[in-house]
């Protein structure tokens, strides 16, 4: 690798004179950028259980709980029975969002949105079908894994039932 060929030229020095005069104060900027990003993600992780493996947390692989190990369980009452719901593909982004950042409000939104579809029963579950019927009372639950030593269990992160 060759040595530096040139110090700051006159033209270079004129490039950002105002910023250069603030060099001392700007020195803290990079670490502040990272610090703010980490603090924001940490806040989301502790307040709304945001995914540890996404965002700016640097918490990869640190816990049994992450979006990929969570589940969204949706049930509905169909002909008097509580049945599992096979979620329409169009709700994929919504479900992904719930897994990454589960809140009761977003669970309630999904429960309400499911009420807009028509449903038919198939193999003990219901699935969306244009020839089906409207039903209400969808229950949406987001659960996460927990660990006590080597024993895995689960707990509810968010829950809502559409009226």
């Amino acid at each position, binding site marked *: 690798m060759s*040595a530096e060929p040139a110090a*700051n030229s006159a033209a270079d020095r004129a490039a*950002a004179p105002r910023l250069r005069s603030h060099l001392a104060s700007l020195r803290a900027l*990079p670490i502040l*950028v990272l610090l703010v990003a980490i603090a924001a993600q940490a806040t989301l992780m502790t307040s709304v259980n945001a995914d540890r493996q996404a965002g700016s947390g640097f918490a990869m692989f640190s*816990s049994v709980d992450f979006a990929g190990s969570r*589940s969204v369980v949706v049930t509905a009452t169909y002909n008097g029975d509580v049945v599992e719901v096979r979620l329409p593909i169009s709700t994929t982004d919504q479900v992904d969002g719930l897994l990454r950042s589960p809140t009761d409000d977003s669970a309630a939104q999904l429960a309400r949105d499911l009420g807009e579809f028509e449903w038919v029963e198939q193999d003990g579950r219901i699935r969306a079908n244009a020839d089906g019927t409207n039903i209400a009372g969808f229950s949406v639950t987001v659960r996460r894994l927990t*660990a006590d030593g*080597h024993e*895995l269990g689960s707990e509810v992160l968010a829950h809502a039932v559409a009226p």
Partner: protein
Amino acid sequence: MTAASSSPVSLPWSVAAAMKQVRTPIGCVLMITAGTGIFMGAHWSPLVPLMLAFYLVTLLAPSAARNSLIWFAIAGAWVAAVMIQPSAMEDHVYLYLAWLVAIAVGLLDRDNFLDEAGRQGRYLLALLFATATIWKLTSGSFISGAALWTSGLLDDRMTPLLNLAGISSESLTDARPQVTAVVASDGETFDISLSSYSSIALTLLALGTIALEALIAVSYAAPDTSRLAKLRAPLLVGFGFVTYAIVPVLPFALLLAVIGCTIARFERRTVLAFVTMVLVAIVRFATL
């Protein structure tokens, strides 16, 4: 008429002069950082052409790429990206953003660029690894090995690591539906039945990871005159070898390499070690 009129020095833009600038430490930092941005663009594809063009600028017009304002502008583009598509971003994108700002700040005083960028890089790596250590210490499921086991269960890339700990791929396949049932219902539990060897191996792996990341944080936070400072590059390269031989996150490997080389002022052996680390990530990625 002499041949002087066709000499490269008479051209307004000289390839030879550009290459000479690229081969300097500053040139390398700028070029590799811009090139890393192309891979980072995988998180938001509209940034790929921008970063590709920027990479070409650092390569073909290195003098122009030494303008601090351009780096602040590129950092601004990444701020926009993380605001527009936050769910698509991973932690190394935020480190990249902070490193772009560090370069912009360093370029305000080009005579001392390596000193300034190296100092900024030290602080960024110390903060990053300190944060990673804290999460692992406080998660409640990392030290026992449960977090590593679960990650391996749901991420095939980590299977070789669990195999080394004596956990067979078959046992993971058997456990998968049972763990899925646990997280889908109330009251169900699942015991990660591990042999004594696997249990000890996973715990040692977890403790080793925490110790390595904590040491990296401390070594980069320590002053340059400290004995710990001598451990910086070996520890970071060691972390890269272990991590990217399992989960090859190429943009992250490239970013750690360019920051590590900057802090080490492009000392020859350190550069070779970081290049090897990146090659490990590339080989692992290509053979997944």
